[in-house]
């Protein structure tokens, strides 16, 4: 039995809290496993070879030619999508099917590139987009922090970085040239 405004408020609050998860969709799509910069910290330009990189990170997703050697690219993706239909809150009390949808998608596409000279020695390495682990905000009107050069967070919170299984390269003393 409902007695007074206090109980009505408590009932409304309980109903809102109970129904708030309704109409929610959370989707996540990942391509390859995330790793931290510590996983690629072993790469020392001028010393580390592509064989070492492959032994730790696995085979790259692509190898392309360049004027100074080759570029091995590890691609990865961490897509997050959320959708909340607040219209579900009104469903029990209205004959119509109302929709009030808040939705947001974060693509999280990045790549780790290794530039090697013709002797397979790493010359440069780096991440393509510098995506760091910003919190994903389902609320669509909140501004995401950009990863501009002067706003980059400290190098301790990687967002989406690839971790590929260990691979093999049958390296030899012979170079590509």
């Amino acid at each position: 039995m409902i007695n007074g405004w206090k109980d009505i408020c408590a009932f409304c609050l309980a109903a809102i809290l109970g129904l708030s998860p309704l109409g929610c969709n959370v989707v996540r799509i990942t391509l390859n496993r995330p790793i931290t910069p510590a996983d690629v910290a072993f790469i020392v330009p001028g010393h580390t070879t592509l064989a070492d990189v492959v032994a730790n990170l696995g085979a790259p997703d692509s190898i392309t030619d360049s004027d100074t050697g080759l570029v091995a690219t590890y691609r990865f993706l961490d897509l997050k999508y959320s959708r909340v239909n607040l219209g579900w809150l009104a469903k029990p009390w209205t004959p119509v099917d109302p929709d009030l949808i808040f939705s947001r998608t974060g693509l999280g596409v990045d790549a780790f590139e290794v530039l090697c000279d013709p002797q397979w020695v790493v010359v440069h390495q780096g991440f393509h987009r510098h995506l760091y682990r910003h919190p994903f905000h389902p609320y669509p009107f909140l501004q995401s922090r950009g990863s501009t050069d002067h706003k980059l967070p400290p190098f301790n919170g990687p967002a989406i970085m690839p971790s590929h299984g260990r691979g093999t390269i049958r390296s030899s003393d012979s170079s590509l040239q």
Partner: protein
Amino acid sequence: MKLPHCLVCFLAVASLLQSCAFSRGTLGDELQTDVIKTIQKGTTTKEELLHLLGAPDRLLALNGRDVFQYYRYDAKAGSLLLIALNFTRLSIKSDDLFVILDRDGVVEEVISSRRTEDLKFRFWPFGD
């Protein structure tokens, strides 16, 4: 366990499983590890490679050498569909094989890795 308990357990499991979805997709042929092991550097020729693995998925030119790339993608998706609250997680991984041939058409390097072996169905979209 008594019959009512068994029925309750069955109904609980059935009610949980009916809201689950498992999906899987693959692209490309499986890269056989034992076949890859038969590729010998400095010995295996382009013709033998084509006989072993077939035509490559991608043919690249690298410093005047041919690179045969073979790949296979595996995707597993798990969904928890509770009508009003849905969780979905799709994980994709790939196996890649690069075979670098010298100017004489003989295998010079073999780069390979298998990532799909530890690919699992996952439902929970949060965390790593």
